[in-house]
């Protein structure tokens, strides 16, 4: 069973790349894991004639090496085309898609494109297209995170002009996406106020390598137990350089700070721009 490309799964569940309104493209998901099936080498487990000598083979290979190679290729592609690529990570329901919808509608100076990641459905990609940006959906099936290969494949179905901003909305999960470099320019973690001020202490791995933490659902502050200063302090224990913006994607509070951060990140990529 493979939770990345789904090969060997009897019900055919695998990673699918889907443009809203079109048929799913399964494609070749085997770039980083060529085969999982039985190789018939005629293994001899019959030891009645004595053991053949064993040999140690040094490997010293990084398990994330193959993913990082594809991520580096993605990163080079983005850099060569002046594309700001954002990896948005959060628990399910923190408001990633709502924030993107709002941003696409209100930050019209940029050409937006979005890669949506979910286990199932094209619901989020459809929302993004209705908001006015080109979107492609990655359905991981049983998978819990996006990896660089999935992003690479998704890019084939996306219109991404030079100078665009690409948002990659990762699978809702505060644990697994942390380990997988997608080739992004910036990592953004979104946490919402109902999730609590101690969230950073409980899920430090995903915060460690993030550039920005967005605190969403500011409008719910009167109804939930959330201390913004304590939250930031907890974040800084694992990532002293973390930047923060606090906002409400539904009501609109604090969006200016988010837009300013995007503009700063974007202009950081374009050294020749005025």
């Amino acid at each position, binding site marked *: 069973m493979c939770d990345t490309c789904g090969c060997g799964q009897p019900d055919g569940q695998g990673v699918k790349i889907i443009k809203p309104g079109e048929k799913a493209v399964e494609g070749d998901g085997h770039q980083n*894991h060529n085969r999982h099936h039985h190789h018939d080498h005629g293994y001899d487990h019959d030891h009645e004639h004595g053991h053949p000598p064993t040999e*140690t083979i040094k490997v010293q290979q990084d398990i994330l090496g193959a993913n990082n190679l594809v991520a580096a290729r993605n990163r080079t592609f983005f850099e060569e085309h002046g594309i700001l690529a954002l990896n948005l990570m959060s628990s399910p329901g923190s408001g990633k898609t709502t924030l993107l919808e709002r941003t696409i509608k209100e930050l019209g100076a940029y050409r937006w494109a979005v890669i949506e990641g979910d286990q199932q459905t094209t619901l989020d990609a459809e929302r993004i297209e209705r908001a006015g940006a080109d979107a492609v959906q990655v359905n991981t099936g049983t998978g819990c995170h996006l990896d660089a290969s999935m992003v690479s494949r998704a890019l084939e179905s996306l219109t991404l002009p030079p100078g665009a901003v690409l948002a990659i909305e990762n699978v809702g999960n505060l644990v697994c996406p942390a380990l997988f470099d997608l080739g992004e320019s910036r990592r953004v973690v979104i946490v919402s106020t109902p999730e609590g001020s101690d969230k950073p202490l409980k899920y430090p791995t995903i915060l460690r390598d993030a550039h920005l933490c967005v605190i969403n659902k500011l409008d719910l502050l009167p109804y939930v137990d959330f201390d913004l200063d304590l939250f930031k302090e907890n974040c800084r224990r694992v990532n002293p350089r973390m930047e923060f913006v606090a906002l409400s994607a539904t009501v609109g509070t604090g969006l200016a700070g988010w837009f300013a951060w995007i503009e700063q990140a974007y202009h950081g990529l374009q050294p020749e721009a005025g």
Partner: protein
Amino acid sequence: MHEMSLALEILRIVEETALQNQAAVVKEIFVEVGTLAGVTIPALEFCLEVVKKDTAADGAAIRINQVPGKGRCPTCGSEYPMATLIEPCPVCDTSYLAMTAGDDLRVREIEVEGQI
């Protein structure tokens, strides 16, 4: 869980290595996992046991070595053991250690037997 993706990649590396060396059977797989790598070792072991079935590594023993974490205090500059990602400096107390070691995730070596 992501340990399944990692187990599949370990298996790919192991099989590719065995094939390149024309080895028939993999007897042992040695993996290094840092304490601060974000990987649960029992979960990784479980996933490896599942994915290695019916492959050249079917009967291989899985040997996972846990590499200890270390971190440096930004205030006093000394290095201390780091068991989790949020560790206060034992001396300065209010300063938190920045990781210097322990996020390893590597296939170190394999023991093979026989020739194909």
